[in-house]
């Protein structure tokens, strides 16, 4: 028979005000197996914990119920206290009489009765607790970083500098991400490439970082500490080990008019190309959709020019596998591609702005390329249609953001700042030009941010109109922008030479598929879900998988970098030991009764159940087996199992039934 101690906490006034703790202690002491029942003002304080430890020793308690706050708050505290008194920590349970009782009720008598009911269920549960040991799993101390933008680069360098190996997978031919294409960055106007490219080179040269560019994550197997990742290395048609990056090949390529992805269609590249001069690795790639050699065995000039014999037209996609212990997802963002064919019916709005129809209506990233010294215009602001210098430029913020009617509900956060930056950079390059900005609100929270926006308005003379633009049309070679100035209460019509749309930030294409491979949740917009929005911002609900940067939510460079370093430190903490301990409250399957129907396997959201075979007299029996490294203890398999062979440690069916029955059996002490 268990010897149970019940410790009821007042939580100062929080519980004791509504619950008569003396009555609770007295009534609970009569429950079967209860050897001692006491209460104290602050059970989590040192004297409170000491009281628990002393009672465990003096009463020779075998199980403890602490009636206090939510187990999320203090279960660990009390389990530790029990452990220090020699009790198995899993013999300590908590009854939540604060969040579930005193905080949500007023009537003292009825709240007291409910508190007793709650405690009774836990007393009945703890009778069936048995000692558990934490699960220990070995750790492969190598991290996978998905995405080579600024967040991925930061995380990779931090982890590698901590002494651990890193595998980085980047979808594009070069790392650098969106930041590599930016001109100058707010709020200091330092050159984006100047601060990023040294970091890119560091990644490329780091002895502990293995780079897979032009590659994608194909599959992820295993569990925290022990992932096996299959990576598809897309055919590049260039042997990057032989290649010296000399440029003979792309200078020879006759196909000059392919829109450059890196310039967002503002410039051109060859069929064999390096995305930008500072690319890492500084190696070209062949675009198989346009290369005549690959399409119809024509041309082949690049191969003839290459002295290093690095061109390989027979190249094919290759799959490689890497063993890693943790994963950092840093897949970044893309802009809302307005006014074009959209797979998602939610994203069909804004055709009235003429993006994709009028050449001089461009988005923020395209304008960055027009401003960038390394851009297609060499940093001279020329409009795409005729190369003329635009004298009037209209900037529209919140295109697609903060718009429940035809866009996305959330704020993209960075647009107010980069639009202010755009007006400044434009004014610095076109002194007699005028920038006009239509905005909803100016959101400039951040160090030096508000001052930066004021500078754009006061020093560089941008005209700001609080209001939306209803339509953009083209008349007589001008873009006629019609909007409202809601502060002045008048409609505004501006004849512009160029219009820049601050389109909403969206998660990169394909991130939801990646999230499914990693068992990471994502929200209705496709942004990856953190474990807790405040206290676990870089963890996910998949153990060992962390997130950093704009794949989680719109964010600017400083935030993405901070989050990347946070994710890196979480990885480093995980790698500090040789093995991981996990809570032992996982599912188990009784292999004697398992009928091998595998309903559990199909129902398991975490892919934690495998098929296994066990020897039985006269042959081999197929069974389902739980991988305790992967199991999250959700209990789905327990509910699904037709033969009642699955059970959950710490929350066994026996325990749950005991709790439910105790509610029915107990004289519900209603007033």
């Amino acid at each position, binding site marked *: 028979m268990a010897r149970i101690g019940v410790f009821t906490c007042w939580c100062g006034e929080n519980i004791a005000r509504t619950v008569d703790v003396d009555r609770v202690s007295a009534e609970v002491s009569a429950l079967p197996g209860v050897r001692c029942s006491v209460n104290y003002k602050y059970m989590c304080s040192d004297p409170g914990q000491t009281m628990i430890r002393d009672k465990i020793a003096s009463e020779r308690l075998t199980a403890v119920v602490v009636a206090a706050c939510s187990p999320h708050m203090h279960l660990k505290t009390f389990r530790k206290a029990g452990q220090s008194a020699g009790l198995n920590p899993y013999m300590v349970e908590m009854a939540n009489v604060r969040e579930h009782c005193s905080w949500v009720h007023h009537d003292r008598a009825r709240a007291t009765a409910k508190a007793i009911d709650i405690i009774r269920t836990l007393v009945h549960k703890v009778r069936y607790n048995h000692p558990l040991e934490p699960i220990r799993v070995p750790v492969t101390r190598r991290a996978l970083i998905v995405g080579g933008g600024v967040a991925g680069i930061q995380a990779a360098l931090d982890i590698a500098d901590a002494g651990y190996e890193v595998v980085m997978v980047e979808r594009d031919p070069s790392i650098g991400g969106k930041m590599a294409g930016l001109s100058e960055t707010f709020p200091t106007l330092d050159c984006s490439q100047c601060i990023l490219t040294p970091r890119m080179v560091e990644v490329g040269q780091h002895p502990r970082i293995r780079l897979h560019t032009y590659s994608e994550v194909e599959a992820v197997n295993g569990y925290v500490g022990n992932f096996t990742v299959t990576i598809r290395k897309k055919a590049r048609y260039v042997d990057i080990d032989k290649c010296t990056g000399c440029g003979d090949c792309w200078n020879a390529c006759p196909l000059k008019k392919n829109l450059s992805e890196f310039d967002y269609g503002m410039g051109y590249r060859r069929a064999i190309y390096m995305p930008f001069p500072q690319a890492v690795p500084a190696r070209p790639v062949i675009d198989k959709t346009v290369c005549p050699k690959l399409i119809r065995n024509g041309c082949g000039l690049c191969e003839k020019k290459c002295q290093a014999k690095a061109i390989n037209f027979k190249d094919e996609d290759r799959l490689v596998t890497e063993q890693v212990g943790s994963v950092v997802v840093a897949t970044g963002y893309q802009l809302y591609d307005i006014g074009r064919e959209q797979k998602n019916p939610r994203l*069909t*709005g*804004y*055709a*009235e702005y003429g993006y994709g*129809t009028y050449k001089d209506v461009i988005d923020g990233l395209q304008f960055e390329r027009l401003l960038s010294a390394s851009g297609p215009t060499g940093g001279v602001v020329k409009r795409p249609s005729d190369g003329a210098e635009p004298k009037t430029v209209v900037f529209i913020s919140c295109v697609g953001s903060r718009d429940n*009617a035809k866009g996305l509900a959330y704020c993209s956060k960075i647009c107010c700042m980069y639009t202010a930056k755009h007006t400044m950079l434009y004014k610095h390059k076109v002194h007699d030009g005028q920038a006009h900005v239509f905005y909803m609100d100016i959101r400039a929270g951040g160090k030096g941010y508000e001052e930066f926006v004021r500078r754009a308005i006061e020093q560089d003379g941008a005209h700001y109109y609080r209001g939306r633009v*209803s*339509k953009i*049309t*083209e*008349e007589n070679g001008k873009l*006629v922008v019609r909007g409202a100035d809601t502060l002045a209460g008048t409609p505004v019509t501006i004849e512009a030479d160029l219009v820049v749309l601050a389109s909403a930030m969206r998660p990169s294409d394909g991130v939801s598929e990646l999230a499914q491979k990693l068992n990471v949740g994502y929200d209705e917009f496709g942004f990856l879900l953190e474990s807790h929005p405040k206290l676990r911002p870089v963890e996910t609900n998949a153990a060992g998988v962390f997130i950093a940067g704009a794949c989680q939510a719109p964010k600017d460079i400083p935030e993405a970098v901070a989050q990347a370093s946070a994710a890196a430190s979480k990885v480093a903490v995980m790698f500090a030991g040789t093995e991981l301990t996990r809570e032992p409250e996982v599912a188990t399957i009784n292999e004697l009764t398992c009928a091998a129907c595998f309903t559990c396997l199909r129902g398991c959201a975490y892919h934690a159940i495998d098929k296994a075979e066990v020897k039985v007299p006269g042959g081999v029996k197929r069974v389902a087996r739980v991988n305790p490294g992967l199991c999250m203890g959700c209990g789905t398999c327990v509910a699904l199992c037709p033969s009642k062979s699955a059970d959950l440690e710490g929350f066994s069916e026996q325990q749950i039934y005991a709790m439910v029955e105790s509610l029915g059996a107990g004289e519900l002490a209603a007033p």
Partner: protein
Amino acid sequence: MEIGYYPGCALHGSSNDYDASLRTCLRALDVHLRELDDWICCGATAAHSLNHKLAVALPARNLAIAERDGLRSLLAPCPMCSMELLKARQAIAGDARLRGEMAAVVELPVEGTTDVCNLIQVFQRVGLDTIKAAVTSPLDSLKAACYYGCLLTRPPDVVRFDDAEHPSSMETIVEALGAKTVRWNYATECCGAGMTIANDAIVLDLAHKILANAEAHGANCVVTACPMCHANLDMKQADVERHAGAAHGMVVYYLSDLVGLALGLPEQALGIDRHFVRERTGIRNQESGARRPAAPAPES
């Protein structure tokens, strides 16, 4: 297909050419219109600017009649009428107290279940393929500027029809008739509507911009599905030309005119001969039907 028909004041009065056009055209497509018995005015701008309850009650009476007579769908070809009917329907359907109140005012029970549609939606229900199959005289020399005006797609949460700022439903139908359409700037701009009475300079300016823009984008006709738009662009066109000092000579069709012409129906039956601006020679391939020798002169 049988469908209820709410002509509204315009189609029984100044825009009876529109009434003729859509009756003729829909009959040929096997759509039978059952005119709403004893219908009353929708209230238009006058009611909703003066009295909210009246603005609900007037269309509610019409909705109640439709419900009583078992008309599940109701065609209101005038966008003002259909918007007022939809607005009242939305208000009634979502508010039990108002439903009761309105039933007392209009002396009929009303639930707000009638499906109110515009002319484009009726053509959509007939089906693009059916229309295509019925075309006998493709309109391949027409380059139409489809003009939705301000109300056909707005307010979006009331009419719930097409993209409010960048619609394309009319283009789809016009292209099915073999005509070309142009992308232009004024498809959803206001023509000035009722200002034509109070301050016609506004209408003349707006109409001039609309016609000039259609022309600048290569259109040789404007297509509308609104009696008010048609009046301001067609009937007023001579005034517009005088006011702006520019010659337009832009033919303005109702959508049902074009469908009718493509089906080979005579102009007279479609009421096209009653339009003020007559067709410029050569924009349509063939003559269809008998024409009256001359259009009535614009009253000025």
